[in-house]
């Protein structure tokens, strides 16, 4: 994983609530044995028509969406299946953060493990971002803040351990492997 300290990017907005992981990447694209190249199937049934042509009215297909690394989404983003292909597809497309008022538990966990930053904001902040698609925002992982273009600094929750992993670019597996003796002691007493 790469270290994640700051990110400044314009936003893309998908305002729907309850955007599920089947919507993020439909199940028929999960017959893969790698994690690469899933970006082209991101939001596939929403982004392309039945003939595979991009739908002009879909936010990610707008010229202004090119290069945007921050997705602003409606409440309960990432609900449904546990497929890690969802954050893999978002990251392969170029996203590095998702801002919402609520993010589903398994998606949030999967996102953090891949360096995709889940950013929970109050309703009013989310509403403002939805009314102003394409604005440039800055995320500061060390300060746990989202800076809006009008100068507002919005704090977001990020637990210390996840923050450490992001800032240092380390994954959790190393931490668990370093606890082998403790784990084996548990196994002996259990």
């Amino acid at each position, binding site marked *: 994983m790469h270290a994640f300290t700051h990110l400044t990017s314009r936003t893309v907005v998908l305002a729907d609530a309850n955007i599920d992981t089947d919507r993020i990447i439909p199940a028929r694209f999960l*017959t893969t044995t790698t994690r690469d190249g899933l970006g082209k199937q991101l939001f596939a049934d929403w982004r392309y028509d039945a003939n595979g042509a991009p739908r002009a009215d879909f936010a990610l297909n707008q010229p202004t969406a090119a290069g945007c690394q921050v997705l602003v989404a409606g409440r309960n983003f990432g609900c449904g299946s546990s497929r890690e292909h969802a954050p893999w597809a978002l990251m392969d497309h170029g996203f590095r953060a998702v801002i919402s008022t609520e993010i589903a538990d398994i998606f949030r966990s999967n996102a953090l493990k891949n360096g995709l930053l889940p950013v929970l904001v109050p309703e009013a902040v989310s509403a403002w971002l939805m009314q102003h698609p394409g604005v440039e925002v800055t995320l500061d992982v060390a300060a746990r803040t989202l800076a809006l273009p009008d100068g507002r600094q919005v704090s977001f929750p990020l637990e210390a351990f996840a923050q450490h992993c992001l800032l240092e670019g380390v994954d959790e597996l190393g931490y668990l492997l370093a606890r082998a003796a403790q784990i084996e002691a548990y196994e002996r007493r259990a």
Partner: protein
Amino acid sequence: MSAAPQTLFDKVWQQHEVSAESASAPAVLYIDLHLIHEVTSPQAFSVLRQRGLKVHRPERTLATMDHSTPTHSAQVFGGAPIAIDSAARQVAALEKNCAEFGVELLALRHAQRGIVHVIGPELGLSQPGQTIVCGDSHTSTHGALGALAFGIGTTEVGHVLATQCLLQRKPKAFALNVEGALAPGVTAKDLILAIVGTIGVDGGTGHVLEYRGMTIRALDMEERMTVCNMSIEAGARAGMIAPDETTYAYLAGRPRAPQGAAWERALSAWRALPSDAGAHFERTVDIEAAAIEPMITYGTNPGMVIPIGGQIPARPGDAAFARALTYMGLTPGQPIKDQKVNVVFLGSCTNARLSDLRQAAALLRGRHIARGLKMLVVPGSQQVKREAETEGLDRVFLEAGAEWRESGCSMCLGMNGDLVARGEYAVSTSNRNFEGRQGAGARTLLASPLTAAASAVTGRVTDPRELM
């Protein structure tokens, strides 16, 4: 040890803490049983290979194949190639990974293969008080036995393979008290759909649900599995039901359940698991079972659900709601009853156990499915299939005009090519009605096996009580 009263969830959590959580670090939680399948494990094995790691406890790991596998007998047993090349590669990758890392695999032609959440309980592997994980969100199913069971992503599959542990923050406890008797024709599926409709698709986020009360106590094990299965559809981390005599009677004598003296020891530990009187739940919701009718979804998430006699609701000004109804081809105020149905799917980890097949078969016996309708019956496991065939249920389905397939996830998510065509309506006993879930443009109506069977007979959404 704290003397404070504990919930079932508190007890299972505490018993599995290798180290407790602190302000700076999550808990290290030990995992008793790790179930893996072909779709969410290959990238985890790749990480083990890259880092030169072994599977820490292969004896606590069981693999099967279910998600992308064919349900046509010719492709499972007849030597015909698996029709989807990428699915065939996933099956081959799981075989190779299990052989290389010493993990037991119930492979494509194995007599005990099936949907991962059907075979765990069926084999007696899933037991009260365990921690159980799988790279699949419907792992919540195993909570029916009093286990703490939850879905994980592929990175975490790698963590469990390598260390038998996960780093976890402790979720909150949420009590769902259900009292009263379910009316005839109203099933466990209707109960859980009503619960998801009541608390919402994110009502359980950050929580572990405990289903409690006399209604839950009166459910048999397979009904309890249906309820716990859909905990994730309310956003919950897991769903649990305290073990009781129903649980022990279900487990006794199963091939991988403890036997003899080990059974007696296990039983005494299991009897200490139910929540203590006065245990604290962060949230409590009461549900009245007698008020529940057969339920059916009309929208694009499982919380968009109404009684079968109801009408599609209106939400003026809600653009996402309007878009969902456009996707479904339904309009506010329209009764859901008599909506034309093209496909009926009886299957999935929610409703493909023997009791589900029996209920549907009882309604279909001596009847025929509607002209032009396609009905797929996909047993939850090869064992369920054999047991159903011993009872002659396969004949009932075939004589009614349905297809009788080999076990697997099948049309629940359409990975194996069992798909609903664009624009078609499917009454499905599965768990998700998300856009595109059963195929691009497919329109899913989630319901019970009884409602599915009744709707198959008439070709329209039908209240099963009219045919019972």
